[in-house]
């Protein structure tokens, strides 16, 4: 009891200090407008000094991968930068963020350095770009996978549910057991889109299909991915789709070991384990990012939301180089029909789990 | 007269400390030659140089008149020098015989141990020197005294002619010490030369032929035993007169300050550690508790200050109930404690001198108002105590782990006496201390006694108990087996009681 009393004394000391601090809090708002002019001034000389067009890419916590095999989502963005450097002769820079708290300073740093376009790869940039973009009206920003409402921000989003729908259909068509699996990374609305499309696609082929879903809680824990996949295999799943970053490598490893099908995500992962990866759901980040750089370079950049869906080839599935001969031609034909129907708007792919579970193919 | 061993001009320093300053030592064959001195006088360094554990900066060693070069213990063994360390270096899981032969075992076909030979050779060796041991007993199961015999046998097996015994009686009971002395006499008769390192003057006078006294890295003198006595030796060791006479009788003994009635306690495994312990300590007296280590002394002290829960009985201080009270309250009631483990209980060795000098008093005036510490008072307290008790420290912010054992003990004594308690518990107060520091502690205890304090003294050294106590209680297996007046008993009687009267005397 005595300890508690002492703690409360200590706590009240801190409380008093905090009062003092709080009393200066409102001042910040007053200070804000005065400061706003500063960045614009800084940006101007930077442009004079550097006539070359400069583009910067900032990753979120994922960073780039170190090998071709483990290439993911951020690597695709960087591919676009490499292509732009070659095609357009621009200067490019990459920053890999280490902490969430670094995102905003990193953006500001690049803006202060006079970069013409800055691309934030990943939805974690939402807050940071929203905070920074208004301070640098002459700088163009692009964000992948999220929406920021500002005239100088291009929001690049993807219809992952559409691509996932197609691989879901392939999965259901290839499953002999009538059970397929889904491995997600950290739970979020974004990953739910993958799951929803996948379930709906599977139901389009086989309304009685059983989909077992699970989340690893991580985008990097390969072992967790493998473990979860093996569990699903134990529950009867013979095709497993992983939308979980590097965790998906665990899924592919499990499939290779036990001899069932895995489905890759984001990049073409068919070659990671030829013959064990049925297909990969492609998310053409490189196309979207390249478009953004090109438009900024050409001077046609416009803010707003750009949706990369099947129609514009923003998503899709791989050419199944190593597995196509094992897939019945009718199934591929059917999947391609679905693709056309999605493009035409006949099929509207659900984006939430609940909608997906109730999905019925329109007649 | 030829010397079996001669060390000439041995010079050795560690950093700024001069450990051996041009030491010359001559030892006659077939004698017991004692080397005595305070801790830090350089006697252990000298022996380590002889045994090859340290290398001297300069100086020569002659064996049988021939100069030898000793760089390692194996060089020493090759030259017939053996050392029995204070802390035994035996393997508990092996038998006595295996330990004796270790490294030089007789083998069958170079691969297999010849167990029969091993046991027989050990038996022969032990018979020849009167060192009764059971060759087949496991070392882990034998007593300290027997372990020491095994060490001696090991050295004999290595064919040592010169045997170094480093503080050999430190861990022995009086009876075991007597046995050891008989063995030493036997070895001397057999022509072996013994170098006996000690600072216990009484036993040195008993066993030695010649005695070399060292102080501050130098040899003070080498004397024949018949030409000296304990007081002279002590004066040579310390460089001044010391207090070694038995304490004068107390001036005035009053009523009981501490009363312990029928106290019992169990340990964490529910084994009894104290059984129906009753005694009282009166104002103006020192009650000595004699006993062999591990017979409940530790638990008794802890029970008195509230650290060891008691299952039965009553403890009162000046009539106030003290059992089942928190430690702090008991200590504040007026008990000063010099704990048996200086470094683990007495001090916080990572704290500095002034912080240690008010340990336990951190909420008492004048050091604190109960919440905030007054460092001014702490500094003043430290200045006063350091001066009064002559604590040797570079400054009061020196961490105590860098001080000598004697100065550490002075800090504890100074602190425990500083709040003027009526009851003082001193557990092993002079363990590991040299003569000067021991003398200091004894002086303080007697001074406190004469000021009318009640003092409980627990010591493993019977000499110390006999030197200081007014009355003596003997503790055995957690019980007080006897309480006697000092004048009505002898070391031998007490020794027997300490062993529960069942001491198995092993004939020499």
């Amino acid at each position: 009891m005595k300890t508690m009393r002492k703690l409360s004394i200590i706590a009240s000391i801190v409380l008093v200090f905090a009062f003092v601090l709080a009393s200066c809090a409102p001042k910040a708002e007053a200070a804000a407008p005065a400061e706003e002019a500063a960045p614009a001034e800084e940006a101007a000389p930077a442009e004079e000094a550097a006539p070359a067009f400069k583009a910067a890419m900032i990753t979120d916590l994922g960073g780039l991968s170190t090998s071709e095999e483990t290439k993911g989502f951020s690597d695709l963005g960087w591919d676009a930068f490499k292509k732009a450097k070659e095609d357009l002769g621009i200067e490019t820079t990459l920053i890999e963020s280490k902490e969430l708290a670094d995102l905003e300073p990193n953006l500001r740093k690049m803006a202060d350095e006079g970069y013409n376009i800055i691309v934030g790869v990943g939805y974690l940039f939402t807050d940071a770009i929203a905070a920074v973009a208004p301070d640098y009206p002459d700088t163009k920003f692009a964000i992948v996978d999220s929406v920021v409402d500002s005239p100088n921000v291009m929001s690049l989003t993807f219809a992952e549910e559409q691509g996932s729908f197609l691989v879901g259909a392939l999965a259901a068509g290839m499953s002999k057991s009538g059970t397929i699996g889904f491995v997600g990374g950290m739970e979020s609305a974004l990953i739910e889109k993958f799951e929803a499309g996948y379930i709906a696609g599977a139901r389009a082929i086989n309304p009685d299909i059983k989909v077992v879903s699970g989340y690893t809680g991580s985008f990097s824990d390969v072992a967790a991915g493998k473990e979860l996949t093996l569990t699903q295999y134990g529950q009867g799943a013979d095709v497993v789709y992983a939308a979980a970053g590097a965790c998906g490598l665990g899924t592919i490893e499990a499939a290779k070991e036990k001899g069932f099908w895995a489905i890759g995500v984001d990049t073409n992962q068919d070659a990671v384990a030829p013959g064990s990866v049925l297909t990969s759901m492609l998310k053409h980040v490189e196309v979207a990012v390249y478009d953004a750089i090109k438009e900024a370079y050409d001077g046609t950049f416009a803010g707003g939301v750009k949706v990369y869906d099947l129609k514009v080839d923003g998503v899709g599935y791989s050419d199944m180089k190593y597995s196509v001969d094992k897939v019945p031609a009718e199934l591929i034909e059917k999947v391609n029909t679905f693709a056309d129907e999605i493009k035409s708007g006949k099929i509207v792919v659900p984006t939430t789990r609940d909608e997906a579970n109730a999905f019925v193919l329109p007649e | 007269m030829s010397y079996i061993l001669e060390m000439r001009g041995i010079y050795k320093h560690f950093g700024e400390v001069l450990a051996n300053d041009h030491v010359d030592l001559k030892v006659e064959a077939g004698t017991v030659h004692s080397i005595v001195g305070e801790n830090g006088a350089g006697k252990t360094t000298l022996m380590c140089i002889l045994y090859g554990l340290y290398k001297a900066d300069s100086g020569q060693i002659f064996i049988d008149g021939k100069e030898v070069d000793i760089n390692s213990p194996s060089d020493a063994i090759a030259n017939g020098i053996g050392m029995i360390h204070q802390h035994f270096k035996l393997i508990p899981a092996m038998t006595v015989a295996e330990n004796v032969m270790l490294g030089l075992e007789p083998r069958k076909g170079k691969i297999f141990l010849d167990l029969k030979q091993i046991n027989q050779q050990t038996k022969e060796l032990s018979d020849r020197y009167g060192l009764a041991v059971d060759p087949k007993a496991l070392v882990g199961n034998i007593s300290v005294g027997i372990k020491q015999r095994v060490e001696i046998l090991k050295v004999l097996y290595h064919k040592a002619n010169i045997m170094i015994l480093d503080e050999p009686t430190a861990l022995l009971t009086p009876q075991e010490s007597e046995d050891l002395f008989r063995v030493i006499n036997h070895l001397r008769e057999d022509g072996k030369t013994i170098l006996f390192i000690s600072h216990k003057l009484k036993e040195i006078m008993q066993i030695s032929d010649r005695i070399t006294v060292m102080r501050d890295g130098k040899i003070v003198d080498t004397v024949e035993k018949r030409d000296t006595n304990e007081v002279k030796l002590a004066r040579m060791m310390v460089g001044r007169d010391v207090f070694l006479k038995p304490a004068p009788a107390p001036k005035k003994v009053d009523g009981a300050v501490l009363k312990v009635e029928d106290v019992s306690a169990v340990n964490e495994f529910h084994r009894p550690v104290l059984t129906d312990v009753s005694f009282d300590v009166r104002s103006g007296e020192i009650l000595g508790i004699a006993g062999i280590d591990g017979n409940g002394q530790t638990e008794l002290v802890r029970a008195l200050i509230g650290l060891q829960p008691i299952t039965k009985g009553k403890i009162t201080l000046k009539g106030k109930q003290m059992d089942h009270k928190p430690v702090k309250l008991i200590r504040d009631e007026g008990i000063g404690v010099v704990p048996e483990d200086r470094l683990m209980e007495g001090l916080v060795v990572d704290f500095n001198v002034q912080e240690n000098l008010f340990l336990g008093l951190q909420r008492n005036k004048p050091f604190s108002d109960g919440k905030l510490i007054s460092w001014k008072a702490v500094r003043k307290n430290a200045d006063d105590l350091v001066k009064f008790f002559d604590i040797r420290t570079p400054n009061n912010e020196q961490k105590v782990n860098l001080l000598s054992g004697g100065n550490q003990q002075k800090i504890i004594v100074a602190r425990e006496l500083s709040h003027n308690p009526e009851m003082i518990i001193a557990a092993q107060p002079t363990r590991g201390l040299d003569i000067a520091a021991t003398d200091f502690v004894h002086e303080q205890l007697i001074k406190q006694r004469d000021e009318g304090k009640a003092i409980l003294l627990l010591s493993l050294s019977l000499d110390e108990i006999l030197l200081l106590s007014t009355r003596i209680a003997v503790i055995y297996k957690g019980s007080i087996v006897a309480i006697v007046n000092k004048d009505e008993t002898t070391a031998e009687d007490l020794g027997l009681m300490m062993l529960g009267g069942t001491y198995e005397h092993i004939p020499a």
Partner: protein
Amino acid sequence: MNTVKKFLLKREDVFSTLIALLIAFGIIAILLMSTGRPAGEAFYYFIKGAFGNVENTSNTISRVIPLTIAGVAFLIGAKCAVFNVGVEGQLILGAMASAIVGYIVHLPAIIHLPLMLLAGMAAGGLYAFIPAWLKTKRGVNEILSTIMLNYPATFFTHFLVLKVLPMEGVVPATPKIDATARFATLIEGTRLHAGFVVAILVVVFAYFLLNKTSIGYEMRAVGANKEAARFHGIPVEKRMITAFMLSGALAGLAGAVEVAGVHYRFLDQFSPGYGYDSITVAMVGLMNPIGVVLSATLFGALKTGILDMSIYTEIPRQLTTLINGIVVLLIASKEMIRSSFSKLVRGKEEFKQEKE
């Protein structure tokens, strides 16, 4: 000579830490040069990146704030023999609790901000009570229990963000806290916020508690020698519980300050391991509150300085991770350096003797 020697030995800890740092930077320089990269340029950009201008310095300081508070949190525990590896979990829960108070309650700033900081402290402190109780009453090693308890904290907040609390947009996070619950940004366009005053107060508080109060003395005594503390009437278990909860409360405060000053909401997985960094920070800071500030500054500077270095020089990004690692490794192996240092200053034999 003698006084120099004494001074060197008295501050042995500090000097061996500095030597460790120098060696670390030396190794990095050799590494850079051997791969044909200009080491001088790299260091220039490193320093510039950490302290080169107002923005960079402000960003460095904003990294130093949570590291300092968390470092002191760990230190307070360690000073009292409590090895709280659970700073991370307590920090996360503290951040969550403060974020909830920050957006659910609407109050004037003068009450709201302190209240949300208190909520963070309460959450961290109470969460630390679990391992504290387990240690003192059941003898469960706190290192194990606190490591284990970091997981429930992470997953519980994850669960709250995704399933319980409303989520705005795609970022897994709580709604933003009210303006009244935020620290003022001191320099616009940077992340330097008034929370740094809290960090300073925490350091002053820790220094005061440990050195000027009876209870702080007792906590230190428990930390240095439990047995002696018990022998001298200090209630060892009580002090350990106090230290544990205080450590947890400060950890929670570190999380709350990040919410109130940087993110303005609880972001799932927002902590880049401040709780684990806190251990390194406290150790490098020689278990001294002032030292913690210096070592937090070093680690904060490493975080911000390396970024500029990788942008402006051709140093591959893998190397930047290595640099961070080398510094930590060298400082961690400081004991080795210290013994060599001792040997050098004292002379070999004396050192040997002392060891025995």
